[in-house]
């Protein structure tokens, strides 16, 4: 028997209201914690996705859109870079990495990135973490394809499996057309899976990678089809019109792979003067993206905090409502020798425990929210995030919740402190 036993028994005698209030606190604290965790996880996920590219060149409308389309595969870029511009870019600087990409086709809604073999050797999906193959190898010849870890897990594709691509970002051939209604399944050319990548925790996990020439052949085939020619197309039939590149990943020579080289700014400024292209520093654009959404982010946080405050009010109301019952208990304890100060602390401890238990349950709620949100983001938007419960945030939210609960308990504690013993001991009824 201890003061804590008295507090716990008191809570147990009002089990239903205690449970409801604890749940309210848990949901509030859990939401706040989930928002904090998702925010930092989202930021990390985006930062990871930029990989080791110093620059990204495209013909998208803005650098931010360029990064979202070129590295996060949000949408197929609308305007391609012509071959002359590609050649000009390649010759303009002794790049350490020059990886052209063409994004536009898809397989069962997963984006297909057409690129070159250097994509697997010089481009790192996450800075300092090169590609690793779980199975197989990179593509060596036309119509070989490598799939990301997420694609392998969700489609069940294994090495040697054959697949056909859809032009545009539409659904798979099984799934029908995309919203734009212009999906076209390239039935004529089958790709063979030759490699499965290890997970990277970036949007690249949900992409497939093939060689540029195969993609160009598909589009040349379409060109001939539109002209009424039904024929087999080979690399020899390709023209510059077919050789579509939507972006180029660039990296400058650097002694320290983890930091931007001094020449980056000058090269960036030089290229920006070319009005025919859009140049982006991916890491900067990610930061810009987060600064843009920050105000919304703050709004969400404020709403979650307001919910937390309302749960503290619920604690206050619950304890006030139980005052008639509590008055009797307080009077009995006073008769047995409990001081007014002790009564005050007993009641305050009660509300604090509700906050503490609610905060602990909030961590569980947070884990559940993160689980659901992660799967939803992955399924609906292809955003790969790995939210981790930040220990510092968890401690701060738990402390804040407990403190709020304690503050909410002050009024009931004062009322208990001032309880008239004689009144409390009156026979019921």
């Amino acid at each position: 028997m201890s003061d804590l036993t008295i507090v716990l028994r008191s809570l147990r005698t009002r089990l239903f209201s205690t449970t409801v209030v604890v749940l309210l606190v848990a949901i509030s604290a859990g939401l706040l914690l989930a928002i904090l965790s998702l925010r930092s996880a989202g930021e990390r996920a985006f930062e990871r996705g930029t990989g080791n590219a110093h620059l990204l060149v495209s013909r998208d409308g803005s650098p931010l859109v360029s990064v979202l389309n070129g590295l996060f595969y949000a949408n197929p870029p609308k305007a391609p870079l012509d071959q002359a511009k590609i050649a000009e870019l390649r010759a303009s600087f002794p790049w350490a990495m020059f990886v052209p990409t063409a994004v536009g086709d898809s397989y069962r809604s997963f984006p297909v990135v057409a690129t070159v073999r250097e994509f697997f050797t010089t481009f790192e999906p996450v800075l300092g973490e090169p590609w690793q193959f779980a199975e197989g190898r990179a593509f060596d010849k036309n119509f070989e394809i490598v799939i990301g870890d997420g694609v392998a897990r969700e489609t069940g594709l294994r090495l040697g499996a054959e697949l056909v691509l859809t032009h545009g970002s539409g659904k798979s051939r099984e799934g029908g057309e995309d919203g734009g209604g212009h999906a076209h399944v390239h039935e004529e050319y089958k790709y063979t899976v030759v490699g499965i990548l290890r997970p990277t925790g970036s949007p690249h996990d949900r992409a497939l990678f093939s060689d540029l020439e195969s993609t160009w052949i598909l589009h040349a085939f379409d060109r001939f089809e539109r002209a009424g020619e039904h024929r087999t197309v080979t690399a020899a039939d390709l023209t510059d019109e077919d050789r579509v590149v939507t972006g180029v990943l660039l990296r400058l020579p650097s002694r320290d792979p983890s930091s931007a080289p001094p020449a980056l700014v000058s090269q960036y400024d030089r290229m920006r003067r070319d009005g025919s292209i859009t140049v982006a520093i991916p890491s900067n654009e990610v930061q810009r993206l987060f600064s843009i959404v920050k105000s919304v982010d703050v709004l969400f946080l404020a709403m979650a905090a307001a919910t937390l405050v309302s749960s503290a009010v619920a604690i206050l109301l619950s304890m006030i409502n139980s005052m008639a019952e509590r008055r009797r208990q307080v009077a009995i304890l006073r008769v047995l020798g409990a001081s007014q100060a002790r009564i005050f602390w007993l009641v305050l401890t009660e509300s604090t425990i509700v906050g503490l238990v609610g905060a602990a349950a909030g961590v569980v709620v947070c884990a559940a929210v993160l689980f659901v949100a992660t799967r939803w983001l992955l399924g609906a938007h292809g955003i790969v995030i790995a939210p981790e419960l930040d220990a510092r945030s968890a401690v701060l939210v738990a402390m804040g919740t407990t403190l709020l609960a304690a503050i909410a308990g002050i009024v009931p504690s004062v009322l208990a402190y001032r309880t008239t013993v004689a009144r409390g001991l009156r026979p019921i009824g």
Partner: protein
Amino acid sequence: MAASTTGPATGTNTSLSAGGHEPALAISGLHFRYGDRGFELKVPSFTLARGEEMLLVGRSGCGKSTLLQLIAGLVDPTSGVVKVAGQDMHALKGAARDRFRGRSVGMVFQTFNLLQGFSARENVLVALLMSDTPKGEWNARAEALLASLGIERVDAPAEELSVGQQQRVAVARALACRPALVLADEPTASLDPENAANAVHVLREACRAQGAALLVVSHDPSLEAHFARRERLDAVAATASASATTTTTATTTTTATTTTTAGATSIHEGADAR
């Protein structure tokens, strides 16, 4: 203050000065007046020896419960002294008075006032927790007390016990800290005559076993047969300062006087309880 009194329960005379013991309860010049309702309670002199039993009867609202609250230090008197086991209760302030009450005064109520959600054992342990009883003694003392009162289901929630068992748990709790004085406020009011007689018997026996003085207040005249020492604490309605005659045993010099104005209501409503 009386020099001596009779120990009616045992039929022996108990000298208050014998062995240097202070009486369990000694009241002198006690005056309590409540607010503008004109309720007054005066007890010029009253003594209860250690181990003594006494019944204080009076009609509802005459101030019996108020007197108990004054004795327990739950209400401050306008003037006068209340000594429990030699300690001036009202000279103690705050937590010191609460602690002293916890270990020196046991209280039994009409509705028992057991803590809901607590077992029989826990109800007794709470009393020990609030006192300065060494923790190592708690369990043994609680179990012994409950066993002596015939409570077998010590871990059953108090509310699941029969009325008679609840009453005995309340008695056990009142005696847990081995108080010098047990105050019982209408302990039989909610019981039928047969159970009332049993309840009083249990209460008296338990107090005797613990050596605690027992002061029972009740409006039930049927209890008078159980107590050799009986007093009346009557209120005289519509009289501003009439004295109430008390019934005393031959050797008792106690006089209790109450004064009320017409229409005065229960002291509960206005008592300036701490």
